C-alpha cells in the first residue's frame, strides 16, 4: 500500500512541476526545446546528470555488477568521467556556435556548418533511429521495477505505459522548462536514494566488509580486474571505454544540453563535478548487483537486470524500497523525457519543417513538436512490449550507432576545411559496417578482438581525413 501512495505522490508532484514549467514557457521553438537558452549552472548540472543517468544506471549497472563484478564499476565510472572532457571540448565549441547562429538541434548545426542538406538529414536520421532503442530501455526498466515492487499488482507493461503517459503530459506541456525543473528534483532524489539503498542492503548482509568478503568466498572472479567470465579483456575494456567517450556527447538529449546554458562557464562547472559524481555514485548499483549473489545466486540473462529491485524487496524496509523505487523511476523518466524532447525537436525542425513546411509559424512548430512527442513515446512503448535482449546489449548497439557521428561532429566543430561529402560517406559507411558486424555479414576477425566500434571509428575518421585533405571545402558558418 505504501508503495502505491509514494509513487502516486511522486507522479502528482512531477505533473505539478511540469505545469509550473508550462506557465513560464512561451510558444517558440527556442523556449520549448531549449528553455530560452538561459539555464544556470545548478539546473544544468542536475539536468545533464539526470538525463545521462538512466534506467541503465539503476538496472543495467546492477545487472552488469551481478554478471561481471566490480570490474564493471571501474570501467563504467572511468569511461563516464572522461565524458566531462568531451563536455568541455565539444560542448564548449557547440555552445559558442549555437549561441551565435541560434541552432536548436545538433543536425541544424551540422547542416549549417557544411551548407549540406543531405548530410544534415542523414545525421538527423541516425540520431533518431539509434536513440529509439535507448529510449525504449526506459519503459522496460520502469515496467520491471513497478512489477517487482508491487509484487506484480502493476504488470510489467502496465507500469511502462503509466509512466510514459505521465511523462508525455509534462514534456508536451512545458518542453525543456518542465524537463529541466523535474530533472533538478529527480537528479537530487537519485543521489540520496541510491546512497540509502546501498547502505541498507550492505547493512542487512552484515556490513560492507563482511558482505563483500562473503561474496569473494563464493565468486572471487567478481573482484578481479577482468571480471566474471573474463569479460573485460584488454581489447574489450579499451573498446567500451572509448564507446562511452565518443557516444555520450552524440546522444541528442545530451548534445542539445550544450545549447541551453546562459554562459559557457556553466558547462565547465558541470564538467568539473561530473567525474566526482561518477567516482562515488556508480559504486552503489554495481555493489548491490555483486552482493546479489548472496541472496539470489542463480540468476541468468535478463533476470539479472532485476537484481536491484529484488534486493530491495528482500533487504530494505517497505518504505525505503518504495522511495528507492521512486528514485529509480526518476532516473527512467528524466532520461526518457529528455530523449522525447530532443527527438521531437529533430523530427519537427529538421525533417517536418525543414523540408515540407518551410516558413511554418513558430507557435505551430511547437504544436507539431508536441504531437511528435506523443508519437515517439508510442514507438518506445512498442519496442518495450517485447524486450529483445538484456539492457546492456540494447545500449551497446544504440551507442555504437551514435558513435559513428563523432568524427563528423568533431570535423564540423574544429576543422575549417572539412569536406561535407566525405562526412556523409563516413556516416553511411560507418553505419553499414555496424549492420554488417551485427548480422555477421562481416567476419569477426576484422575487429582484431575489439568491439566493432574500433574498426568502424577508424574507418569513418579515415574517410573524413582523406576526403578533406584531397578536396578541402571552406565551412560556411562563422569561424572562430
Amino acid at each position, binding site marked *: 500500500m505504501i508503495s502505491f501512495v509514494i509513487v502516486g505522490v511522486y507522479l502528482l508532484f512531477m505533473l505539478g512541476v511540469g505545469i509550473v514549467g508550462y506557465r513560464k514557457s512561451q510558444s517558440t521553438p527556442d523556449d520549448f526545446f531549449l528553455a530560452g537558452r538561459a539555464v544556470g549552472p545548478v539546473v544544468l548540472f542536475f539536468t545533464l546528470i539526470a538525463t545521462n543517468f538512466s534506467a541503465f544506471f539503476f538496472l543495467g549497472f546492477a545487472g552488469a555488477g551481478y554478471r561481471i563484478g*566490480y570490474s564493471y*564499476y*571501474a570501467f563504467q*565510472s*572511468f569511461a563516464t*568521467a*572522461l565524458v*566531462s*572532457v568531451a563536455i*568541455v*571540448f565539444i560542448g*564548449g565549441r557547440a555552445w*559558442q556556435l549555437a*549561441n*551565435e547562429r541560434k541552432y536548436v538541434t545538433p543536425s541544424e548545426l551540422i547542416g549549417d556548418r557544411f551548407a549540406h542538406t543531405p548530410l544534415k538529414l542523414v545525421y538527423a536520421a541516425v540520431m533518431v533511429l539509434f536513440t529509439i532503442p535507448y529510449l525504449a530501455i526506459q519503459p522496460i526498466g520502469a515496467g520491471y521495477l513497478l512489477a517487482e515492487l508491487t509484487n506484480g499488482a502493476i504488470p510489467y507493461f502496465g507500469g511502462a505505459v503509466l509512466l510514459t503517459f505521465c511523462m508525455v503530459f509534462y514534456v508536451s506541456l512545458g518542453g525543456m522548462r518542465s524537463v529541466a525543473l523535474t530533472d533538478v528534483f529527480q537528479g537530487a532524489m537519485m543521489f540520496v536514494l541510491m546512497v540509502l539503498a546501498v547502505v541498507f542492503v550492505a547493512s542487512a548482509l552484515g556490513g*560492507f*566488509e*563482511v*558482505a*563483500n*568478503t562473503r561474496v*569473494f568466498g563464493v565468486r*572471487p572472479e567478481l*573482484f*578481479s*580486474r577482468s571480471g566474471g567470465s573474463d569479460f573485460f579483456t*584488454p*581489447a574489450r*575494456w*579499451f573498446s567500451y*571505454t*572509448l564507446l562511452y*567517450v565518443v557516444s555520450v556527447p552524440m546522444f541528442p538529449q545530451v548534445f542539445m544540453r550544450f545549447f541551453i546554458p*546562459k*554562459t*559557457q*562557464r556553466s*558547462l*565547465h562547472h558541470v*564538467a*568539473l*563535478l*561530473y*567525474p*566526482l559524481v*561518477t*567516482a*562515488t555514485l556508480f*559504486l552503489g548499483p554495481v555493489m548491490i548487483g555483486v552482493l546479489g549473489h548472496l541472496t539470489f545466486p542463480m540468476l541468468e540473462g535478463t533476470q539479472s537486470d532485476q537484481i536491484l529491485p529484488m534486493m530491495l524487496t528482500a533487504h530494505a524496509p517497505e518504505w525505503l524500497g518504495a522511495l528507492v523505487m521512486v528514485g529509480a523511476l526518476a532516473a527512467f523518466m528524466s532520461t526518457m523525457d529528455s530523449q522525447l524532447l530532443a527527438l521531437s525537436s529533430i523530427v519537427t525542425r529538421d525533417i517536418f519543417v525543414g523540408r515540407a513546411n518551410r516558413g511554418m509559424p513558430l507557435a505551430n512548430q511547437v504544436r507539431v513538436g508536441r504531437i511528435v512527442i506523443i508519437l515517439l513515446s508510442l514507438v518506445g512503448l512498442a519496442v518495450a512490449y517485447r524486450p529483445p535482449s538484456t539492457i546492456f546489449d540494447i545500449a551497446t548497439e544504440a551507442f555504437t550507432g551514435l558513435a559513428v557521428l563523432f568524427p563528423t561532429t568533431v570535423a564540423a566543430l574544429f576543422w575549417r576545411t572539412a569536406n561535407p561529402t566525405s562526412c556523409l560517406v563516413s556516416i553511411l559507411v560507418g553505419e553499414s559496417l555496424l549492420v554488417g558486424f551485427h548480422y555477421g555479414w562481416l567476419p569477426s576477425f576484422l575487429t582484431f578482438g575489439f568491439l566493432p566500434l574500433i574498426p568502424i571509428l577508424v574507418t569513418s575518421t579515415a574517410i573524413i581525413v582523406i576526403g578533406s585533405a584531397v578536396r578541402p571545402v571552406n565551412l560556411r558558418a562563422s569561424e*572562430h
Partner: protein
Amino acid sequence: MTVKRSRPLIAAAMIAILFVLSQDYWTWADPVALSLFGLPRWVYLFAALQGGVSIVVLWYGYGNTTSKDGK
C-alpha cells in the same frame, strides 16, 4: 603552452591513459587482497583517476572560456 596548442596533447594523453589502463599493468595491486569496505584495491585506483580527470577539466576548461559568454 597555449590552451589551443595543448589540445592534441590532451587527446594523445587520454588515448595513452586508456590504452595503459586496458593492459594488465596494475597487477601490483594484488587482485586477491581486499581493501577498505571489502573492495579490491584497484577499485580505489580508478576512483582516484576520476579525480585526475577533474583536474584536467579544471586546467583546460577554465582557461578556454571565450569572452562572449559575458564573463
